[in-house]
């Protein structure tokens, strides 16, 4: 276990150590203490590693994560796991804006609530939120799945492409071109798998599915009111 106390060590020390990991390294467990809201904690990890962060972090924690498992035992600032590629990022508390923005792969789990624009521009990442998400979540979401066990704020899935949205609670409103869709067996299976991977016990059949009506895929003057 390698320990980084961010009251003594710098974020640079931590990230440099993560980037210096090689496939041959056996010790791949990292403990990060006293993050105290610092930004860019554990960004750009490339290899399998277990990184536990004890406390609250600022912006972009676990940004562009590849293969590592990152657990934040606290709340996270804006852009947690932005553009993550693979691996898993788990937040035991709440997440600020843009959680999982433009993520391309892997699993992001938020045990609390996520603020506005959760999953904005997501490109393949799966995001599971045990609580609720704020307005404009999944804006321009391209691929992957956003699972919300609580409620969703206004304009969910605005200008969505091919991402799949599952919400158990209420949806304040749907954004442009986002519609409710049938929950087929295939979707129940996918959702059950995501909930299981996230460690959340919930019945997939209680969720509703939302996705793109695909009316804005090619410009059509008769749909101009939706832009």
């Amino acid at each position, binding site marked *: 276990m390698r320990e980084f106390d961010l009251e003594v060590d710098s*974020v*640079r020390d931590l*990230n*440099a150590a993560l*980037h210096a990991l090689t496939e041959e390294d056996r010790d791949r467990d990292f403990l990060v203490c006293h993050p105290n809201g610092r*930004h*860019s904690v554990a*960004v*750009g990890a*490339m290899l399998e590693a277990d990184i536990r962060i004890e406390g609250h972090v*600022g*912006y*972009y924690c676990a*940004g*562009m994560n*590849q293969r590592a498992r990152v657990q934040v035992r606290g709340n996270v600032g*804006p*852009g947690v796991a*932005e*553009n993550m*590629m693979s691996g898993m990022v788990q937040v035991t508390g709440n997440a600020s*804006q*843009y959680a999982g*923005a*433009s993520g*391309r792969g892997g699993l992001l789990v938020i045990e609390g609530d996520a603020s506005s*624009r959760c999953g*904005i*521009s997501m*490109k*393949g990442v799966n995001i599971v939120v045990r609580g609720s998400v704020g307005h404009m979540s999944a*804006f*321009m979401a*391209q*691929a992957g799945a956003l699972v919300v066990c609580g409620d969703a704020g206004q304009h969910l899935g605005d*200008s969505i*492409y*091919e991402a799949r949205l599952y919400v158990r609670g209420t949806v304040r409103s749907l954004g442009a071109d986002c519609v409710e869709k049938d929950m087929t067996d295939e979707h129940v299976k996918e959702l059950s798998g995501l909930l299981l991977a996230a460690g959340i016990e919930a019945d997939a059949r209680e969720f509703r599915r939302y996705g793109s009506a695909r009316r804005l*895929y*090619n*410009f059509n*003057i008769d749909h*101009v009111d939706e832009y």
Partner: protein
Amino acid sequence: MSVYKRAQRPSATFPDHVLSEIHRAADQGIYEIRGFGAKRRVPGFDDLLFLGASVSRYPLEGYREACGTDVVLGTRHAKNPLRLKIPITIAGMSFGALGANAKESLGRAATAMGTSTTTGDGGMTVEERSASETLVYQVLPSRYGLNPDDLRKADALEVVVGQGAKPGGGGMLLGQKITERVAGMRTLPEGIDQRSACRHPDWTGPDDLEIKINELREITDWRVPIYVKVGATRTRYDVQLAVKAGADVVVVDGMQGGTAATQDVFIEHVGIPTLPAVRLAVEALKELRMHRKVQLIVSGGIRSGADVAKALALGADAVSIGSAAMVALGCNKPVYEDDYARLGTEPGCCHHCHTGACPVGITTQRPELEERLPPEVGARRMRNYLATLVLELQTIARACGKSHVHNLEPEDMVALTVEAAAMARVPLAGTDWIPGWRE
């Protein structure tokens, strides 16, 4: 028809092109989306002249006395700043907007000339990485194709906040250009219009930008320079905020800058010309005492060695070319005229990059059109053009008595028009008058 000619005079408010646009809008019900840059005339580098040396200062011997052209970019924070042999770089143009042959041509030519080329929306292709010795990787609002592996392969990063052709606006790659490969790179279905967002998904203001830049530095272990590119609008503030956010290099793109596809109303009516933008950017850097510490790259309508010399004389460290590079590859060349006609245009007027049917094989993904631009031919043309720009630049610098092109200065120039004098803050030719200037 009346015998009195006055009765047939056209309206100044509704000239031909305005009438035609209203007719088109009424027929189609959508604004015009097109490629290329502004077509209207704006005050520009043509409105400045150099004062060659004579008695008061002596020139350097052409071809004999050295006139340096090298530039180092990213000296502020990066462990590995870029060392370029010439101060002319290739601007970001996406694979998708451009075909693979055009991208490869640019990469090969830039490598041969010791300069950099730049990716675009959609990410980095294997071909352009291998063709370009020095490659700048753009981090754009859409984040199409963005990934940390390519981030680490890049020689510099460019956070694109805006573009001169459309500051404040996103992009649009129309469905007809979205092949399987382009769609795959952008994680979107084939054939749909691909909108590029106008704002980054995970930051909004200058304070966020500072944190974002820091994250990118952390991911790349502080190795590579980080540029911030802005469209020229409130240039003084934007440049200062980019510096405050930690940029190593600021790129200012004037309104003459081109685009693959955006609304004509944007191209022609939003942003300020490159000429005042350079001067404002330099003043902003000087005010912070960061001129030459944070390097300035200027783009937007740079066409000739004279334009490069004027931008450098106003205080830029380097320029970037996009549209002119495409012209060097053959854009608007009078060949394949039937294909221009099929697009409803002719050589010299074409701005149909958005259609994907580029007659000269540059902005297309269609193999039969791309064949018209073999990479070795494109690279040769581009290399010749860059070499010509450098020779022209050195010719002017030597004539002004400068042993390095960065020694050119505003004092070497005069303006031909009152507007240009005011915008560039150089005197109107034959006077010592700089409109609007107070000591």
